[in-house]
């Protein structure tokens, strides 16, 4: 009986060991499977992450460069707009000074010279002078001016004050009679014509 008991215990022990072995192996296999899947997931994600990060890096760099370029533009704009404002101030002040000057005695010879110069450029002969209402009332010596133009051009010149009035600070438009050809020597047009060069000159004086 004792030997039978030993044998049966051996059989059961062996079965339990086998069962334990089977379960341990299964647990290990399951763990391995999950670990492998986890590693596979990490690896796959790392591949995607590499692309994602590379893209993010270049986007970040590009955005940074764009922002810096915009910042430089903004900064330059601050300086440029300040300069432009001062240049405008100079031009406006010059216009104000001219307006005041047109009410002084100094103005009459200046106006006569502007008319003379325009008349010479047009080549003399029959000319019409257009002025603003204020200047039309000035004691202009049109005969003297015509004489000067005649001397300079070699053509007998006659000047007539036009009925048409200008809305300008000062100066004159001279027109060949019965013709559309004009020479605009108003302060307004001289300023307009020379504005590009003037702005450059003003900038040189103001900021250098």
């Amino acid at each position, binding site marked *: *009986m004792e030997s*039978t008991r030993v*044998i*049966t215990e051996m*059989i*059961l022990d*062996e*079965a339990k060991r*086998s*069962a*334990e072995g*089977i*379960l341990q192996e*299964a647990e290990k*296999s*399951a*763990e391995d*499977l*999950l670990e492998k*899947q*986890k590693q596979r*997931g*990490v690896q*796959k*994600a*790392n591949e*995607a*992450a590499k692309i*994602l*990060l590379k*893209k*993010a890096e270049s986007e*970040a*760099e590009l*955005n*940074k460069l764009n*922002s*810096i370029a*915009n*910042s*430089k533009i*903004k*900064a*330059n704009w*601050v*300086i440029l707009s300040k*300069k432009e404002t001062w240049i405008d*101030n*100079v031009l406006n*002040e*010059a216009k104000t*000074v001219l307006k005041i000057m047109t009410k002084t005695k100094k103005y009459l010879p200046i106006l006569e010279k502007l008319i003379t110069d325009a008349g010479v450029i047009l080549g003399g002969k029959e000319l019409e002078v257009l002025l603003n209402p204020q200047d039309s009332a000035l004691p202009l010596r049109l005969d003297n001016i015509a004489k000067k133009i005649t001397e300079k051009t070699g053509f007998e010149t006659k000047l007539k004050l036009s009925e048409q009035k200008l809305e300008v600070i000062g100066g004159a438009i001279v027109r060949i009679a019965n013709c559309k050809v004009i020479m605009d020597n108003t*302060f307004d047009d001289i*300023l307009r014509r*020379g504005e590009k060069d003037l702005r450059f*000159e*003003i900038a040189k*004086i*103001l*900021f250098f």
Partner: protein
Amino acid sequence: MLVLLEAFKAIKEKHLEAKKIVEEATAQAAKLMNEAEKKALSVYEEAYRKTLSQAEQKAMDLKREAAKEAEKKLAIFLSTAENQAKGIEAKAKKNFKKAVDSVLNMILC
């Protein structure tokens, strides 16, 4: 003889019991593997999601950092520009009359 028979019977019973233990363990092992296989996809997805999410966070940090750097540069540029603008203003005030006279000279001469 009877004793021997009893012994064989006991051994046979234990054999059956042992077989049952092994069969149960095998079934349990199969169940374990089955569950692991079912879980495998979610483990893969979780690992993928977690790793990618870290990378996404890093990408956002990169972009944030670059934006911060650009903002700092903007502040420096603007501050420099404002200082330059002050210098310009000072020069302009000093040379204003000279510039106006230059314009008048150009028009009147």
